[in-house]
């Protein structure tokens, strides 16, 4: 039986960008975007990705939503999909994205392809969690999430890889979103919402001459290396991330998926703590370390998805006690771009900029450039 692939297009994604709005979350903003003359671009981006798949001439069954939410893009590529979801109105919303994803899961899809931005990724995540892998076509204004392919063609290529059986592994990728209301007011506040499973294209990291270890075992090696160096009577403030989560797992502890947890002497001291609690804990404990890993697709160490670890928290723990961890593949995936720090403390950002010593595995460290995005705080 041919594999079933679901396609969801968020038709309003990306409309804000061309008219200077930051995202299109909420009907009022969409209306404003339309008034400003914004053109839908998600459908075209989706078609560009689908075209890759159509060209490859592989047997598969395409399930999608009526009209602009997928059908139009499919027909533009001479693909003939089954319609499994119809939006009640042409003013689609997050409810439609979620509804469509649920309908597709009920139909037993093996892969969901969606076109949109961070908001769309959140909606898909809420419906899908880790039940089905996804391929995300970047079409929104906000692309902080690591789930997105670098461009529509690369997304199509991933789908072909999965359908041909060339890519059989998946990895977790962060779903991040900015608080758009705060963003439009000039404040940047991102949250980590969860993880979607995306196809893990080994070709992008593997070289012909060297057989790469799987990213999984590299991350385990790294987590064990961190656990090995843990000292007694020291609190470990563990930031969110797929890499850092393994540290708790190797300690046999349950951790929160998205929050900041605190470990001491092999025990979980506090789960999902905020800035206030962290400052209290730092007052009560003489020795502390902060363990962070780059978050999202852009390499933020601080300021995206882990704002609980504020400038005050870092200063209270001591800048020298910040432990940065990342697998070599994760560093390589930055494509030479620096790591970024964007805490609420500009002076601290300046201090952290320069070079970070990143633990990459047992007995292995890297010295990697760090910058702070000027003028965003």
């Amino acid at each position, binding site marked *: 039986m041919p594999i079933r692939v679901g396609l969801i297009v968020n038709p309003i994604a990306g409309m804000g960008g061309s008219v200077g709005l930051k995202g299109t979350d909420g009907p009022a903003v969409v209306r404003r975007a339309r008034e400003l003359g914004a053109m839908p671009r998600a459908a075209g981006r989706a078609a560009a990705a689908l075209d*890759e798949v159509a*060209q*490859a*001439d592989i047997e598969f069954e395409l399930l999608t939503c009526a009209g602009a939410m997928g059908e139009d893009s499919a027909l533009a590529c001479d693909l003939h999909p089954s319609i499994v979801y119809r939006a009640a109105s042409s003013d689609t919303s997050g409810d439609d994205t979620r509804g469509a994803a649920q309908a597709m899961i009920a139909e037993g899809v093996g892969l969901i392809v969606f076109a949109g931005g961070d908001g769309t990724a959140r909606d898909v995540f809420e419906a899908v969690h880790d039940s089905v892998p996804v391929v995300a076509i970047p079409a929104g204004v906000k692309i902080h999430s690591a789930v997105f392919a*670098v*461009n529509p*063609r*690369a997304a*199509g*290529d991933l789908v072909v890889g999965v359908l041909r*059986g*060339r890519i*059989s592994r998946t990895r977790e990728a962060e779903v991040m979103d900015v608080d758009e209301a705060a963003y439009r007011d000039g404040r940047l506040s991102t949250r980590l919402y969860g993880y979607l499973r995306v196809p893990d294209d080994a*070709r*992008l*990291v*593997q*070289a*012909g*001459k*060297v*057989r*790469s270890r799987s990213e999984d075992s590299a991350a385990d090696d790294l987590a064990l290396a961190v656990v090995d160096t843990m000292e007694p009577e020291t609190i470990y403030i563990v930031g969110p991330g797929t890499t850092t989560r393994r540290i708790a797992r190797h300690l046999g502890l349950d951790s929160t998926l998205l929050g900041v947890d605190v470990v001491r002497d092999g025990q979980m001291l506090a789960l999902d703590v905020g800035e206030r609690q962290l400052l209290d804990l730092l007052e009560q404990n003489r020795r502390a370390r902060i363990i962070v890993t780059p978050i999202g697709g852009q390499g933020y160490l601080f300021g995206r998805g882990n704002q609980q670890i504020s400038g005050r928290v870092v200063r209270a723990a001591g800048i020298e006690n910040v432990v940065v961890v990342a697998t*070599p*593949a994760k*560093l*390589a995936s930055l*494509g*030479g771009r620096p790591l970024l720090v964007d805490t609420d403390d500009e002076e601290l950002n300046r201090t952290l900029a*320069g*070079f970070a*010593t990143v633990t*990459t595995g047992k*007995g*292995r*460290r*890297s*010295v*990697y*450039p760090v910058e702070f995005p000027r003028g965003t705080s």
Partner: protein
Amino acid sequence: MIARHGEKVALKERFHQAAWQEKLVMELGRPGRRGVLVPDAGDDIRARAGDVLAGTPESLRRRELPNLPEMSQPEVVRHYTRLSQMVLANNVAVNLGLGTTTMKYNPLVNEFLSRSPKLAELHPDQDDSTVQGILELIYRFGGMLAEISGMDRFTFQPAGGSQGILANALMMRAYHASRGEADQRDEVITTIFSHPANAAAPATIGFKVVTLYPGPDGIPELEALKAAVGPRTAGLMMTNPEDTGIFNPRVAEYVRVVHEAGGLCAYDQANANGILGVTRARDAGFDMCQFNLHKTFSVPHGCMGGAVGATGVREALVPFLPAPTVEFDGSRYYLDADRPASVGAIRSGLGNVQSVLKAYAWVVSLGAEGLREAAHMAVLNNNYLVGRVTAIPGASLSFGKDNPTRRLEQARYSWEGLTADTGVHTMDVHNRMIDYGVQGYFSSHHPWLVPEPFTLEPAESYSQEDLDEFAAVLERVAEEAHSNPELVKTAPHNSTAGASVPGAEAHPAMTWRAFLDVQGQGAE
């Protein structure tokens, strides 16, 4: 036909490799078939020879016949001739794409020298007095490499670049141990664009490894190194130029910073083909280095004779060299195994001496000026090719925007633009090139810091026509990526080999027995 610069090069449009659909040799033949019928010795000879197995201990005698295919001689000759037609080797195709490996012409005359019974029939355990010739050659060649690098003594025992790097790491450790600092100094610093053996070899003997990542110009900033050095620093192990082909102009400062911290500095000269006679390891302050004779010094790689990581050190480190060393007392050459501070043998015997002979012959044939000329020609070839390749839409030179300085003997490029425009990846391009009768290229060591990478190294022995042909093939495949991406993605079409099966590398089978095991498991 000679293509002048700018003229269109005629590609091998109708190239097709021999596809013999040849089975594995173990699947050929029939029971009872044989090559040579050995005549019966006869009673007289048997009586005079006595029991020929008497000298062979019982434990070494074979109890069962070996599991070999039973074939006639014509079948065997046919089989191996066919296999030889199914490869794109150095002697068949332009092979300048394997960057970092310095695939240059291996003079055939040196093969005749090394196959001479005078060398081929020597035994590593022969008495020194009976091998004076080869010992003299090794001794003299050590002196030549000392002159080329500025080091004081060389060993040819390591059978490859990574063994040479391992020897240097062992000597680094022994040096610190001799000063009572072995426990304190347990970190080796390297760079991400150095050959990965500079991280792997020291890690193998227990060093922790600190890797420096580059800044926008492709080279780690001095500040990055300063952030890495400290009282734990045992030393620095790095390549220069790195795999990007960029020569690190701050290298002498690197060495100074590491020396000030009490560390040693080892120079991996795997990429030395552009600097012979131009700059020396010693002049940048290095304490130790290694050359890959199978790259820079014209010795063939692997299957035609074995690699050599010629490893050299400054006077102060000579006591730590692998043993035995070749010494000269003014009248005779001899092996010195009585070296208490030595890190021991890296390999049995004196290593791949036939390769040392070939490298010696190459250097003697060129002379000092010839070596420098070879280096200049390699750099010229490379920069000519950089111009041709970067003119292809979709191809770019890594770090080219922030660092336009000339590359030395090799360059790492990226197809990032082509992939974004067409969805065609670097390995797709590689697979399609073969269809035009040129050898494919090397992408990059792991991890891929440069997206969609490829690394070319046109050594001095390639002609301008070779370079033009290679560039024209890349240009053609890039055009095809736009006009017919599926053609490129499903390549090769005119080659013996198909695209490799994904996941097959997880179950390599280098022997028939391993192959049967893998078949039994069912490769994923």
